[in-house]
């Protein structure tokens, strides 16, 4: 028992690793602030494209969404980070992560927005247009607010997924929370930094997971 505590809950090691982990946490936060807005914007873009009057555009948007939902994000990230240099493009870890996440997250958000927009009845569009609003105004003031409200749990739940997903940036040596923790682990030969990182993720994400459950229940009733 003593030995297990030594290996997993070693307070002395946690204390030494904490500054490094907090720096990692800061990187994770920066990463989220970059990739979540990018994904939200890109997702709205593909959702609108998937409802374009042109069949070809619609088709291309749906194929794009399904393509990037089929590739594991880590595969995409490694392809961009270690594959693109062969084409003469050398992205920094942060750029590679931003591109990979943009492609992956936009597809997931796109699918959510699409379901949201479809959940708003055609009557809403027609009524908004008949009052003299232009298409983009009807979208921005009438349809989107209702669409977003209808799929709010999915939007928040996907944000949780994105925050969790930032941990794969450790694979391309971007010093975010998991990377810092794993570095501390390999230096100290002790698992406590990983446990500490898990605790930090839990502190941030547990309230969000609870929030998703509550939102889902509210919509369901």
């Amino acid at each position: 028992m003593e030995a297990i505590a030594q290996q997993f809950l070693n307070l002395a090691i946690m204390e030494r690793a904490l500054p490094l982990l907090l720096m990692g946490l800061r990187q994770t936060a920066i990463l989220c602030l970059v990739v979540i807005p990018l994904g939200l914007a890109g997702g709205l873009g593909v959702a609108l494209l998937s409802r374009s009057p042109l069949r070809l555009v619609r088709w291309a948007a749906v194929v794009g969404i399904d393509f990037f939902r089929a590739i594991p994000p880590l595969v995409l990230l490694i392809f961009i980070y270690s594959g693109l240099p062969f084409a003469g493009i050398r992205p920094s870890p942060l750029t590679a992560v931003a591109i990979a996440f943009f492609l992956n997250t936009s597809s997931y958000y796109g699918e959510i927005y699409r379901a949201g927009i479809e959940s708003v009845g055609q009557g809403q569009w027609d009524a908004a247009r008949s009052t003299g609003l232009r298409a983009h105004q009807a979208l921005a003031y009438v349809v989107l607010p209702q669409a977003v409200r209808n799929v709010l749990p999915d939007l928040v739940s996907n944000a949780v997924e994105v925050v969790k997903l930032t941990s794969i940036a450790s694979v391309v040596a971007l010093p975010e929370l998991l990377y810092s923790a794993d570095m501390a682990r390999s230096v100290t030969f002790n698992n406590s930094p990983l446990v500490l990182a898990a605790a930090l993720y839990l502190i941030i994400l547990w309230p969000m997971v609870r929030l998703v459950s509550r939102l889902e229940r509210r919509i369901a009733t």
Partner: protein
Amino acid sequence: MQGSPRFVDVFFNWVLIERYFPAIMKGVAVTIEIAAAVVVTGLALGLILAIVRAFRFLPVSALIVVFADAFRALPPLVLILLVYFGLPNLGVSLPSFAVLWLVLSLVLAAFSEEVFWAGLLSVPKGQWEAARSTGLGFLETLVYVVLPQALRLTVPPITNRTVVITKNTALGTVIGVGEILNQATTAQSFSGNATPLMMGAITYVILFIPVVVLGRFLETRFAWRRL
């Protein structure tokens, strides 16, 4: 990019495609085996937990909620590293593919327990009461009356979540599981060429596009009735 011949040479090099095709196929077998095992154990455990929760025995339900929340909140890669490096200290040593299977199964169990539970709650109380009044016991009511109605609703969200989690088999490369991504990166570093990475990416698309499309189909077919 220095002209298209070089591009083809670096990303679609035929010699390398032939050379590394067997390795990628070996990766495909490993990916499919682990994914299938994860789907079976993850969904079974999730369903069992949701059923246990239906008995509403508070301490047990609370434990299930804590488990489901924690495994939904923690990044799978954190869990994989923790189990992989941690277990040997507990005197248990599992091969890396078993670590991947274990962690992803638990993550899928956590998510599917929540979905199954939401499905159980969505069945109106009258169904329970009517079934019990015909003389069916609690478990019989659950299995013959409530679950069949509840499961129908859970098909689309479970499918989509299962796809996301089986894609996470790619995380196994970090602990050296010889799945597709691992074979591709190994081949890439041996050959100094991006063709194996391209092969890996295309292989994933071929494997997962059908399930992604299936998920989309199920979503329209068994749509959750939203207000």
